[in-house]
C-alpha cells in the first residue's frame, strides 16, 4: 500500500477564485451547468451553494459583517470530501461500491453503486449526492485516476495560492502545524486545525486550518459514526418484539383458555 495521501486546506489564504471547482469539473468531466440553466444564488458570490453529485469541490463564502457593514471579513473555504479514516459512507454502503484505496482515500465505484442513497444520509459532512447523469452517488475521488498515474489532484494543482495542498498525510500534518504556529505568532490566535488528529473519525485525510468555530464554516463540531446507534437501536427493537410477543400471547392464550373454560361451565 502506498502512503496515505490527502489534502490540507489552509482557509486563511483562499481568495475564492474557484479555480479548484473549475479544475475538478474539467478533469472529472462534470457538467458545468445544471441542464443548461445556470442558476445564480442572488445573495452571494457563491453560486455553487453546496457539494452535490456534479460539484465535488465547493468554495464556501462566509460573510461576517457588522450591521452597518463598516467592519467585516470574508471567510473562504474550499470544501471537499474529507476522506475520513473511519468513513461513515463506506460503513453503511450495502453494495460494496464504496471502497478504500491504496492511498487511504475513499472512492465510490459508479459501476457498482445502485443509488440507494444510504451513504448520503450517513455522511456527517453532507458531501455525497446523486449525480443525475449516472443515477449513482458521487463525490470527490481525490483524483484516484491521477494518483495512480503519479499525478497530483486537479484542484490542488490549479490552486494559485496553495490554499489546497496535496501530499502524504504525515508531511501535510507537519506543514499545517508549522502554519498554525506562524499564525499564532503573528497574532491570529484563533487559528487551529480541524480534523487533523485521530479523535475526529480516526482523522480526516482532508483536513482544514480554520480561524472560527467549525459551525461557522458549516462543519459539524462533533461528527460521529452512524453505527454508534446500531447496538442500542437493535436492542430496543428486540425489546419491542418481546413486548409485542408477550402482549399477543397474553391476549390470545390466557383469554382464549378462560373463554373456553367459561363455555365448558355453561
Amino acid at each position: 500500500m502506498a502512503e496515505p495521501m490527502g489534502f490540507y486546506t489552509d482557509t486563511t489564504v483562499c481568495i475564492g477564485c474557484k479555480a479548484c471547482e473549475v479544475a475538478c469539473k474539467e478533469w472529472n468531466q462534470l457538467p458545468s451547468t445544471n441542464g443548461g440553466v445556470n442558476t445564480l444564488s442572488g445573495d452571494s458570490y457563491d453560486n455553487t451553494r453546496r457539494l452535490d453529485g456534479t460539484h465535488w469541490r465547493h468554495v464556501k463564502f462566509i460573510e461576517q459583517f457588522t450591521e452597518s457593514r463598516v467592519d467585516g471579513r470574508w471567510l473562504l473555504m474550499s470544501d471537499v470530501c474529507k476522506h475520513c479514516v473511519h468513513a461513515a459512507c463506506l460503513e453503511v454502503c450495502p453494495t460494496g461500491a464504496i471502497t478504500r484505496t491504496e492511498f487511504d482515500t475513499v472512492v465510490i465505484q459508479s459501476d457498482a453503486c445502485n443509488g440507494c442513497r444510504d451513504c448520503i444520509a450517513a455522511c456527517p459532512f453532507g458531501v455525497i449526492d446523486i449525480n443525475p447523469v449516472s443515477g449513482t452517488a458521487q463525490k470527490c475521488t481525490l483524483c484516484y485516476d491521477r494518483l495512480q498515474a503519479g499525478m497530483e489532484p486537479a484542484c490542488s494543482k490549479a490552486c494559485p495560492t496553495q490554499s489546497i495542498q496535496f501530499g502524504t498525510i504525515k508531511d501535510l500534518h507537519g506543514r499545517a502545524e508549522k502554519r498554525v504556529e506562524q499564525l499564532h505568532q503573528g497574532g491570529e490566535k484563533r487559528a487551529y486545525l480541524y480534523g487533523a488528529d485521530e479523535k475526529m473519525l480516526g482523522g480526516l485525510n482532508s483536513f482544514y486550518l480554520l480561524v472560527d468555530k467549525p459551525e461557522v464554516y458549516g462543519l459539524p463540531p462533533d461528527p460521529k459514526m452512524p453505527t454508534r446507534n446500531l447496538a442500542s437501536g437493535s436492542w430496543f427493537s428486540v425489546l419491542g418484539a418481546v413486548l409485542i410477543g408477550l402482549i399477543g400471547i397474553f391476549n390470545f392464550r390466557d383469554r382464549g383458555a378462560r373463554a373456553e373454560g367459561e363455555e365448558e361451565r355453561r
Partner: protein
Amino acid sequence: MNTVPSSTFFSAPPEWGWLIALYFFFGGLAGGSYFLASLIDLFGRSQDRPLSHLGYYIAFPCIAISGLLLTVDLGRPERFWHMLIESNTYRPLFKPWSPMSIGSWALMIFGIFALVSFLGALADAERIPWPAWRKVHPPSLLGRFIAVIGGVFGFYVAGYTGVLLTVTNRPIWSDTPLLGLLFIVSAASTSAALMILLAEKSRWTMPGLLDLHRMDAWVIALELIVLIAVMVSLGPVLRAWLNAWGLLLLFGVIGLGMVLPLALYWRSEKRGEQNMTTTAALVLIGGLILRLVIVFSAQGV
C-alpha cells in the same frame, strides 16, 4: 447555524420520500400481519383459523409491494441485486453492521416465508386444490416451525427500517435509538387494525377478533408510551419538530391515531358493544401518518 442542537444537522438529506415512507408502512404491515397470523396459529383457538389465514393473505402481497417500492426508488433500479451480490465478483455480500445490507437479506428470506405461508393458508382454506401445501401450515410440525421462523423474520423486517434510519447522521433519525422499537410496535398495531378491518368487512364473528381488538388497544397504549419516549430521547433536537410536521405528529398520529382509538375502545368496552371498524381505520391512518412524519420531517432540516 451557530446554535444547532446536534452535529447531525450538517448532513445532507438522502431524498427518501413517498416510496420509502410507503415501504415502511407496507413492510410493517407485512411483518406484523405474518407475526399476528403465526401467533393466532400457535396460541389461538381452532375457530380463529380464518383470522390467521387472513394475516398470511396480507403479508405476502404487502412484502411484494415493498420490494417493488424499494426497487423503483433506487437511482439505478436494474442494479437492485447489487444489495445481495457483489457486482464484480458475483459473491454474496453481507455487511452485518449495515442495516440496509442485512435488511435486504431479511426482506428476501421473509419474502420466501411469506410466499410459502400464503400458499399454505390458501391450501388450508381449500381455496387452491393443492392439499400437499397444507403441510407447511400449522398445526403440522413443519408448519409451526415455518410460522415461528417466519414470524421472527417478520419482526425483523418491521423493525430494521427504524434501525436503518437511526444508523445514519440525519437529524431526528440518528438522534434517538428508539425508532426501531417504535416501528415494530406500530407494525403490530397497524397490522392488527388492518386484519380487524378486513374481518369486519367479511362480517366474521370468531372470538379471536375480540382478542385481536383488545390486543390492539394494548399495543396502541404501548406505542403512545414509546412515541413519548422518542420525543424525550431527542432532547434539544425535538425543536426540529416545531413545524407543520410536529403538528401532524401531535394531531394526526397521537390524537387521531392513538388517543381517539383508545378513547373509543374504552367507551365501547363500558357499553359492552364494540365499534371495531372506526377504531381500526383510525389506527391504520395514524400509522401511515407516523411513517410520513418520520421520513419527511428529517428531509428539510
